[in-house]
């Protein structure tokens, strides 16, 4: 029985060979050529497009990184420039300040000197006025004191003028 079944099992049936050949060749020629080829092509082009997308993404990332470093450098440069400018401004400011101070000092000294000169002048003129006033007063006092004696005596008058001259 074993041999019988085994022989039946491993004897190819001509009809099935015929139908398998027919079915497979139909499948191969129609589905294989009309569907598998376009599918394989589509998958290939999809792979290519994915690869392209990946590489362009990588490139974009690199570019971004480059841009970032560029930006950082630019920022650093700007910061340096800013601090440079600030320093210059500060220097300028201090220069202007010291300059202004010096000028102010000078001005002040000048003003003071002028004031002093003015004061001196005023003082002198005041003194002169005072002297004149005093001399006038003295003369008046003296006149009042010596009114009578001085009225005629020439010697007296000379003596007084001499005195007044000495006072000057």
């Amino acid at each position, binding site marked *: 029985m074993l041999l019988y079944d085994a022989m039946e099992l491993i004897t190819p049936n001509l009809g*099935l060979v015929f139908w398998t050949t027919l079915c497979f060749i139909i499948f191969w020629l129609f589905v294989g050529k009309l569907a598998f080829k376009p599918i394989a092509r589509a998958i290939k082009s999809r792979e290519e497009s994915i690869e392209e997308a990946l590489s362009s993404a990588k490139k974009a990332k690199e570019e971004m990184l480059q841009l970032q470093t560029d930006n950082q450098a630019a920022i650093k440069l700007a910061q340096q420039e800013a601090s440079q400018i600030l320093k210059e401004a500060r220097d300028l400011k201090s220069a202007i300040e010291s300059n202004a101070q010096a000028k102010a000092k000078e001005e002040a000294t000048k003003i003071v000197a002028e004031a002093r000169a003015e004061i001196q002048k005023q003082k002198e003129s005041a003194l002169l006025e005072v002297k004149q006033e005093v001399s006038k007063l003295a003369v008046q006092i003296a006149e009042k004191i010596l009114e009578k004696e001085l009225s005629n005596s020439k010697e007296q008058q000379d003596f007084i003028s001499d005195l007044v001259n000495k006072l000057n």
Partner: protein
Amino acid sequence: MYSAIKNVIFVIMLVFGSITYNTLQAQDSTLIEEVTEDVVAISETVTEGHHAPALTEIINEQDPIAAIMHHISDANEFHIWGDIALPLPVIIRKSDGSWSTGLSNQYHEAKDGLILSHGRIVDAQTHSAKELIDLSITKNVAMMLLSLLLLSIIFFSIKSAYQKRGVHSAPKGLQSILEPIISFIIEDIVKPNLGKDYEKYIPYIMSAFFFILINNLLGLVPFFPASANLTGNIAFTLTMAVLTFIVTNINGNKNYWSHIFLMPGIPKILLLIITPLEIIGMFTKPFALMIRLFANMTAGHIIILSLVSLIFILGENGASIGGAIGGTSIAVPFILFMNALELLVAFLQAYIFTLLSAIFIGMAIEEHHEGAH
């Protein structure tokens, strides 16, 4: 041939072993004798040329081997449920050269000297199909046509999906299930083996893969309209192997043929030995393909069916409820395991068949490298 017989005999021994072992556990020794006598009796009737009893009778008579053989063999009608079977077209050339056509249900009574016996159409007198050329749409052919239809629907819909959705959008549905498989075949089977002209062989390799795969999978489905053991049928594997042989030798280049008939770099006298060996080698490669697929698929089916038979054997066809429960609890986990394994094997065998086909074709079209010897 030898390895196939060995394979089949091994599995049948397994069945015998399980019958004997389980009966020993469940029954007393007298029953073993009865069962053995039964088996011997059935064996004798079959070897005398009589035909195995119908499936229901087979199970009643506790003959799992006949039941299994019936299940893995081809049939002229498509069994659906109980006594219901789908009649299939019959095209038979009789030994006298005349043709007989019709539907298989017309052959329940003898027609044109032919009769439907246990699923197969045989000569009404001799009860043998040996003299007939059966070009009928059998159960296997019906399932193959179904698979062809399924494959056409699947792949033309995928093709239109690629055309409609373009290659820049992500795949969807069926397309996304099959795209990894298709790119696996192209990247790992076709490209590494078939050199720079690989695109020419994509249709053949992919057709072979999916044709074998879908029929492996349909063969695992245990009910109508699948269930036919097509890829475990030697006629199917023979055809596929012959097609690989034809593709290999049609595309074989000068280098391939010179390696067969005039192996370079070898003393002329040795060619007397080498050339016949190389010629045998041309045929052993597809032969191995044929046997590998046939034996793997058939063995898987036989193991699963043996495990199913265990339930009937232990349950004594309903006489012993306890035995049936025991048999079920033993058999079902094993059947589940075997089905999972067969699912793997279905993919694996389709992969191996196409991989080896690609390697054989690749060897035949390989460009000659100077200094390789």
